[in-house]
């Protein structure tokens, strides 16, 4: 893994409006065959700029995570192209974009879940508080403990609600009943689930409704007091009421945790996030304060997407 030390500022500070939209992409990205075809199709739909447009306001925030010139391949197929993206601390950052644009791939790289797939190859770097998470000496287990992750489909474990929540502590060997119950209650309260389940902590987590299951998963993710909370389309399997509850929850957790949320629901992104990054075909297109992205996008492709002209 090459640690390219390109400064965050230099390439992207230049206003992206200047970057020629019709620049041949192959020259910049130098990708192999398959993705070139995909790019060709994209060209027909919307012209893409080679560099991401990152608003200054994002840069001025203290950031906890820095994704830098990050590219990723699934076997021969490139899924992420040179993504550079700082993630501000204590804020909610939303990743939007059409299906298959690499949002989930990117978020799964942040806690190295993509390690589980054999054919994955990466370039570039991701740093958590200045330390590379991709370096060979990084303890993946410890890294994942610093990040809570919630997945697209609720995935409670086949055990009681209580055990589900305290799972991160259990794997650390915590046995103290009092500590466990305290963490359980705190996490469930934070996840706005406590009132609904406090009388049936011994029941199986699988007996909860879908929305409750997802909040249970959030409770589990925050039980280990992570530094970053990664939400990978947490509401895509839920009905509107459950979705609203999760969104309220994200509002409550804002400030306490750094949250990265992947969503393909633009309204959701505009409702819950401070910053929004628009990704398309494996590249970061535009990244800025949510309000600006949705009201005054700088790039035409962003505008086209958020106004619903494609995607």
């Amino acid at each position, binding site marked *: 893994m090459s640690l390219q030390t390109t400064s965050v500022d230099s390439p992207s500070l230049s206003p992206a409006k200047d970057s020629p939209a019709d620049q041949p992409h192959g020259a910049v990205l130098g990708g192999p065959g398959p993705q070139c075809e995909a790019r060709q199709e994209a060209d027909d739909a919307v012209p893409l700029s080679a560099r991401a447009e990152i608003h200054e306001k994002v840069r001025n925030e203290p950031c906890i995570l820095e994704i830098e010139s990050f590219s990723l391949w699934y076997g021969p197929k490139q899924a992420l192209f040179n993504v550079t993206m700082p993630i501000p601390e204590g804020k909610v950052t939303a990743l939007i974009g059409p299906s298959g644009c690499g949002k989930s791939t990117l978020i799964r790289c942040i806690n190295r879940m993509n390690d589980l797939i054999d054919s994955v190859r990466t370039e570039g770097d991701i740093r958590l508080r200045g330390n590379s998470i991709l370096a060979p000496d990084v303890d993946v287990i410890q890294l994942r403990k610093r990040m809570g*992750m919630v997945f697209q489909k609720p995935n409670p*474990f086949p*055990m009681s609600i209580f055990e589900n929540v305290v799972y991160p502590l*259990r794997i650390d060997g915590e046995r103290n009943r009092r500590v466990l119950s305290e963490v359980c209650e705190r996490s469930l309260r934070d996840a706005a689930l406590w009132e609904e389940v406090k009388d049936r902590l011994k029941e199986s987590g699988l007996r909860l409704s*879908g929305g409750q299951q997802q909040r249970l998963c959030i409770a589990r993710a925050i039980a280990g007091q992570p530094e970053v909370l990664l939400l990978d389309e947490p509401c895509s399997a839920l009905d509107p009421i459950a979705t609203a509850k999760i969104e309220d929850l994200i509002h409550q957790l804002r400030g306490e945790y750094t949250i990265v949320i992947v969503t393909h629901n633009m309204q959701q992104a505009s409702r819950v996030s401070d910053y929004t990054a628009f990704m398309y075909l494996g590249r970061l297109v535009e990244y800025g304060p949510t309000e600006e992205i949705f009201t005054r996008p700088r790039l035409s492709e962003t505008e086209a997407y958020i106004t619903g002209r494609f995607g």
Partner: protein
Amino acid sequence: MTTPVLANRSDPTSSAPVGDSPPSPRSALRGTQSGASLMTRSESVVWLLGGALVICLAMIVGLLSLIVWQGLVTFWPRPVVLIRLADGQAVMGEVVREETAEARTETPPHDVQAQPARRLLLRVGNYELTQEHYRWVSDAQTDGQPAERPAWAVVFERMAWGRFYGFPKAFLIGDDTIAQTPAAVWAAFQKYHSQVRRQWRQRRRLEHDEAGEVNRLMEQARLRLKKFELEHGKDSPQWKAAHAEFETIQEALERRFARIRHDIETIDRWNSRYQLRVETADGRETTLLLKDIVRAYPANRLSWLDRWKIYGARWWEFVSAEPREANTEGGVFPAIWGTVVMTLLMTTAVVPFGVLAALYLREYAKPGLAVSAVRIAVNNLAGVPSIVFGVFGLGFFCYIIGASIDELLFAEKLPSPTFGTGGLLWASLTLALLTLPVVIVATEEALAAVPRSMREGSLGCGATQWQTIRRIVLPKAMPGILTGMILAMARGAGEVAPLMLVGAVKLAPELPVDRVFPYVHLQRSFMHLAFHIYDLGFQSPNSEAAKPMVFTTTLLLIAIIAALNLSAIAIRNRLQRKYEPGHF
């Protein structure tokens, strides 16, 4: 089901939800007239599927009902009939079978006529007098005389020589005749029989337990001496000291043995005084010793209650007693014990191994050529004839591992082998090997069925792979693993061929588990129900008597396997219920 009219009028989507399975759109659109034939609704295949199922079920039900019926009637006390033959002979016994055969009566010259004739198979017993247990009696021999049911025909089940059918004549204690009419003899028999049998059991306990213990102590002393001989050489001072000690022990044991012998003889003398004079159907008289009679009953004077009592007593004897008469009579308790212990041992050996192997294959090994090759090899292992496993078990477990253990630990017992021959442990391990593919395949499937999202959730929490497997994957896969265990148990418990090579025997003198340290004797050979069935059916000197026992033993084996499986299924269901995803 939709009516044809309705199917005609309505479009396919609206008619679909009415039937059990929605008719295909095309057929619904065509909407045939009367009967909405199965053909047009492309449901004819249902008949094929249903037919296949019915044939399967019919075969299974047929086989099971044959076994259950034959197994259940075996112990029912049947009436005793007396048939007088045309040549003046009298035959008495239980009717076992009735056949209508094409009797070939040859009337000269060479005029062969075939005419149906009835013949009966009688269990006539009295082997020591007639040299036969069973006898065919055809209608031609009886000259049409009807069979009688003499009131005082008594069936005696004995320790040796099989059954005896006769009329009680006198009851003797020593030289005193205390009863002479059948009713009085029968009353005396009932009065004294249980007492004599109690004495007999006491004698057997003396012979088996006490004398057995003396033998064991003697053997221990001899082995200790042999050990000194091996370690220090003969005529060394240590050996001489040991030899002196051995002689004192031997002397003490011999005295003890003589005491036991004396007790046994006393009981024998006392028991032999009780005698029964009986007369056979053709008038021969003989004497039966009361101590040799297991059970007796006047077959034609029994009330329904008496019959049920005898039936129950025979079943109880069957499941609780040891076999006698070359396994054709008595019980199969040692075989039940051997089957259960062996199956449980096999399960405890195969399940951990299979699960560990499957875990490695599914969770850790990188998928590739090697893993595929292993998987194919495992599946092929399931197709290897079981006798091959027996040969392997004999060669590898008994002769290589067992012989090495003997040389290391039981050198003083050589040349007689301890572990170097077939035994419970080796049989269990051989069957574990045989059933390993079943467990591996079932476990792999169960592991594959654990959703990826659950593993990711656990890994995302910072769990290591092993923590994920132990806390999430294994509990979730446990019902599937237990299914594999059930299949393995069913397969293993019914296996015979490898057992014949690695430890199952016709008659095991001792149970594999007893009160002698170390309580579980894994090196002992054992009896097994499935082998017992084979032995009864094909190796028995008295095959006609063994036949009903084949069915009863089969019934018992099936019942035991079913019981083992049901308990495993109960455990599995409990696990499944624990975390079932409620109503959602």
